[in-house]
């Protein structure tokens, strides 16, 4: 198999593309987190119209793929009178955020509902204001379940960014295709691309592992290992999603 020689002159272009891909991925993951939080909280609320509306939005967004939605926003939306013609990058980030947010809403909802209702009642009995109960009791526990699941969604989002090359955003895949046409060296180009995307997925996963490590539930778990495991065994294990869930044995299914 040939090495990357011959691709040398094109490497700066590919690096530019990688940077664009990283930027779009970061923007979309952040956007998806916001959308997921909004839709997820609405889905978990007891207000029926709010729940129905967010449920409809989630099903609508999850019913079609990112590519179909991107094409609609980029090509079809401007033909409607009064609708804006969005720049390709903005359209891409918007679609990825909404689509990722729809998948994330389900994660947020199940995370919130996994915290037993009895705890809210207990907070009420203790006279804690509702806001404090949510931010100091429910949310820290819910995040222990939300963050790992959202991390794997974020990895998916990083990979989904590759569809933006279809609306002429010059991302990694766009430049990869361009370089392939220019050099006709298919195998090395796509191996390089695959390596870049693997590294990106790995980096995103690592960031979310770090966030998970810094969460209050994980810190509490490190301070006091769960019963049934010796302290040394608790220390030697890396704090994976399963390990952090073990702190709260009632979590899982509501």
């Amino acid at each position, binding site marked *: 198999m040939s090495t990357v020689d011959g691709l040398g002159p094109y490497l700066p272009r590919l690096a530019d593309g990688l940077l664009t891909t990283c930027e779009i991925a970061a923007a979309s993951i952040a956007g998806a987190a916001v959308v997921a939080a909004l839709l997820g909280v609405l889905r978990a609320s007891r207000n029926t119209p709010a729940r129905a509306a967010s449920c409809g939005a989630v*099903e*609508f967004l999850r*019913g*079609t*793929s990112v*590519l*179909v*939605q991107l*094409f*609609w926003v980029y*090509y*079809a939306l401007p*033909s*409607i*009178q009064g609708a804006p013609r969005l720049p390709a990058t903005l359209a891409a980030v918007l679609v990825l955020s909404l689509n990722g947010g729809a998948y994330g809403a389900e994660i947020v909802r199940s995370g919130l509902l996994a915290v037993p209702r009895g705890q809210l009642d207990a907070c009420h009995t203790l006279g804690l204001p509702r806001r404090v109960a949510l931010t100091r009791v429910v949310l820290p526990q819910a995040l222990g379940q939300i963050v790992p699941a959202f991390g794997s969604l974020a*990895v998916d989002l990083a*990979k*989904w*960014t*590759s*569809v933006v*090359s*279809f609306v002429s955003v010059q991302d990694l*895949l766009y430049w*990869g*295709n361009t370089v*392939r046409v220019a050099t006709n060296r*298919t*195998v090395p180009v*796509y*191996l390089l*691309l*695959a390596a870049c*995307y*693997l590294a990106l*997925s*790995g980096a995103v996963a690592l960031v979310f592992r770090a966030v998970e490590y810094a969460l209050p539930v994980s810190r509490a778990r490190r301070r006091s290992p769960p019963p049934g495991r010796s302290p040394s065994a608790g220390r030697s294990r890396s704090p994976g999603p399963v390990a952090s869930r073990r702190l709260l044995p009632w979590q899982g299914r509501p």
Partner: protein
Amino acid sequence: MSWNWGYAGQIMPTLLRGVGQTFLITAVSGTIALLGGLLIAVARWTGPRAVRVALRLLVEMTRGVPILVLLFFAFYGLPSAGLRPSAFLTGVAVLGCVYAAYCSEVYRGGLASVPRTAWDAAAALGLPTRVTWSRVVLPTVLRANVGALANYIVILYKQTALLFAIGVPVLLTNAQVAGYESFRYLEPFTLAGLLYLLLNLPSVWIIRRIERRVTRGGF
């Protein structure tokens, strides 16, 4: 520009042909994914260490790279290896392999959750290995995970739109071609989106039914 019903009706037959292709591709690559995933999982469970490590690496790599990159790699790379499959065949094979990797993880989780006592009981009864697998272990795994597997098939259905990239005439491709020929994108893409959505809606209900039926009286 506003909605034109005449034009919408005119492109409908083309779009419906795309729907047919979409379903055909979903069926074929879904079969590859379900059977291939099972093969991978069983090989990773029973195979020698080298096979296990190699398969694990392959699965992790497939899951870390966008489908589009694999699709282009196969479409442009296979001819340089002397193979010239059609775009349809390439697309079906790539989608099937990618989702086989995803499904294999589901099967693997299912295998890990078969209780030790079930294996012991099968051994105590003197069941041959083949019977243990086909009558004890696999039914348990399938029953517990039919929902997760069906979910991947639904995602696979939506991802068939990616085959637009290599020109397979799926629903999205036909919409794009129709729009390109008349410079009207509103109707084709809106109809395509609605068709994807409408055809996807029953899946939620169907999955729930299958799950209820299969898990009844299960482990």
